[in-house]
């Protein structure tokens, strides 16, 4: 990454800083963040865990936050029944809802007690783009679930409108669940506009003892968006974090997930599906760090690369010395659906203790010829047959979506031109 970009980044920060809200993050921390980031440099393709990311888009990106203009909102997805919906435009909270029982949802921009002490970047170099968010954040959603929160639902919609100014947007979220709290969060990143723009999101998850968070993350950004995302999570004893991510949008997408299982018997399930088409790149790096005994991770990835796209998943399970009795499973599968497409799967295990059970499997291949012929021999059109098989391929992840309404929405999102298959599925 050239120094020219860093110079420009500093200049843009210098010009924007006066207008950045201190209630979200104070000026001192912002400056610190930009300095740390510049010292470390932006990610480059020479770094092992950034190899498959399209980083060229960062070179061209404009970092200055976009204005929260009154541009026409796109049609938002149908609200989920029983969920309180919060809409953020260009990273700023636009619409308030009534939070469910036991849950507090606050926008740091709209005042209230300052709460900027939490950090998203970890010591992990892969998580350093969260510093960019820390420097430029225009708002932050602080969601706290108290122990009495019981199966409450929150929906966060982040809308990036890539307008003429092509400014960046900085979604920033903290999800903190108290002891025993139960919460479902649906987080959507959607976009409108033809201009290229940067979305840099940063999410912090803190789960207290025995808390259970079900977290759906949908990336459906506009076609020329660069989406760079960092999520760090900390799981206390017996906490359970079910994270399901589906990525279909953006030109270049990279998500870094760093989960630390610090409490005994904490459980993480990470299920991710990514679809790449045209020139898209979809990249995810997920590190699950086991720091306590009897912790578990189940990682499932299904990716399909069509046309000239690239889909990558790099999943690492690190079992530290104190994490005896860890159980981890990785199942990574990629489907090549284009002659010029690329799939990169990397399962990694790093184990510093005995007494662990870790299994992993990674396969990448093309559509099964036998399955395809079987469908054709039943009169199914080749296009539909291919869609069905791609559909079936994603099933391992899609089947984990427990909310029927959301599942239907995600299926529609995944379907795209698979609409015929979806219509059939719905009839039955």
């Amino acid at each position, binding site marked *: 990454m050239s120094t020219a970009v860093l110079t420009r980044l500093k200049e843009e920060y210098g010009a924007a800083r006066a207008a950045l809200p201190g209630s979200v993050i104070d000026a001192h921390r912002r400056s610190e963040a930009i300095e740390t980031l510049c010292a470390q440099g932006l990610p480059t393709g020479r770094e092992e865990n950034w190899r498959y990311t399209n980083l060229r888009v960062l070179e061209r990106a404009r970092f200055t936050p976009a204005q929260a203009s009154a541009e026409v909102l796109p049609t938002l997805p149908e609200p989920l029944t029983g969920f309180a919906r919060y809409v953020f435009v260009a990273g700023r909270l636009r619409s308030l809802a009534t939070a469910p029982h036991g849950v507090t949802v606050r926008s740091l921009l709209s005042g209230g007690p300052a709460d900027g002490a939490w950090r998203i970047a970890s010591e992990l170099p892969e998580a350093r783009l969260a510093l960019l968010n820390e420097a430029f954040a225009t708002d932050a959603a602080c969601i706290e679930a108290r122990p009495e929160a019981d199966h409450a639902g929150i929906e966060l919609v982040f809308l990036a409108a890539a307008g003429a100014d092509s400014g960046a947007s900085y979604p920033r979220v903290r999800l903190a669940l108290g002891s025993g709290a139960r919460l479902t969060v649906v987080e959507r990143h959607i976009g409108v506009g033809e201009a290229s723009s940067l979305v840099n999101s940063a999410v912090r998850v803190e789960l207290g003892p025995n808390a259970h968070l079900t977290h759906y993350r949908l990336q459906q950004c506009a076609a020329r968006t660069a989406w760079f995302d960092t999520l760090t999570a900390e799981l206390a004893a017996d906490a359970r974090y079910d994270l399901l991510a589906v990525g279909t949008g953006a030109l270049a997408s990279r998500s870094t997930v760093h989960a630390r299982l610090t409490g005994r018997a904490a459980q993480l399930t990470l299920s991710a599906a990514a679809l790449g088409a045209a020139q898209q790149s979809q990249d995810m790096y997920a590190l699950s760090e086991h720091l306590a005994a009897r912790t578990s991770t189940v990682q499932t990835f299904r990716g399909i690369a069509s046309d000239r796209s690239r889909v990558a998943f790099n999943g690492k399970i690190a079992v530290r010395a104190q994490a005896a009795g860890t159980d981890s499973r990785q199942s990574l599968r990629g489907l090549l659906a284009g002659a010029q497409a690329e799939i990169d799967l990397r399962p990694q295990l790093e184990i510093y203790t005995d007494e662990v059970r870790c299994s992993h499997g990674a396969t990448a291949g093309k559509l*099964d*010829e*036998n*399955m395809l*012929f*079987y*469908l*054709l*021999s*039943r*009169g*199914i*059109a*080749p296009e*539909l*047959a291919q869609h*069905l*098989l791609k*559909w*079936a*391929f*994603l*099933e*391992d992840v899609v089947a984990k979506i427990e909310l029927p309404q959301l599942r239907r929405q995600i299926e529609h999102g995944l379907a795209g031109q698979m609409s015929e298959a979806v219509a*059939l*599925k719905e*009839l*039955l």
Partner: protein
Amino acid sequence: MLTIENLHATVDGKEILKGLNLTVPEGEVHAVMGPNGSGKSTLAHVLAGRPGYAITAGTVRFKGRDLLALSPEERAREGLFLGFQYPVEIPGVNNVYLLKAAVNAARKHRGLAEVDAFEFLTLVRDKMRLMRMDESMLSRGVNEGFSGGEKKRNEILQMLVLEPSLAVLDETDSGLDIDALKVVASGVNTLRAPNRSLVLVTHYQRLLEHIVPDRVHVLVNGRIVRSGDRTLALELERRGYDWLIGEAA
């Protein structure tokens, strides 16, 4: 219904069918028998249009049309059905979904509207009862986790729902116990009709005790070397294939 003349087919440059002639008139059930490696499955797959086979000579006419000019899906929509020897498992595509897509593809081809969802399910359930299949199989992935016998029943179920004009059943009896064989056979027999033809590709005579063929053909080394009525099958049962292999050589 089906007229095959001088059919030559190769796989990876190796000739498997070497001038095969076979005519199956409308309304008739024909059995194609033969030893292992004689080309029985190749014949079934070539008829269904499976990729990987090169047709080097010959013609196949199906209901008066050039079958070989049609894609696999067009053949199916025209009313050709292949019952697979080894039905494929497709986890994630559910059975009823496939059945419906298949029925609608054929209906669209004939200029008909899509099938009514309720009537369709009623029909499928009726056929499932006939095949002694549990209804829960409908919502499962295609053949997913099915036993060998369940897969074969599922093939026949698909055939009953699709009502093809020509069904080619490739070793449908293999891997079936006697009870399953009877169920499969009775399913097939319900489909016998004056406007429909069946080709049973089989290694053994026992299927033909339950589905009585009008004609029996013996395929040896890529050619039909003998044809006769059902007594030919009994003769094969008694004498094996060796005497015909000797004649064909």
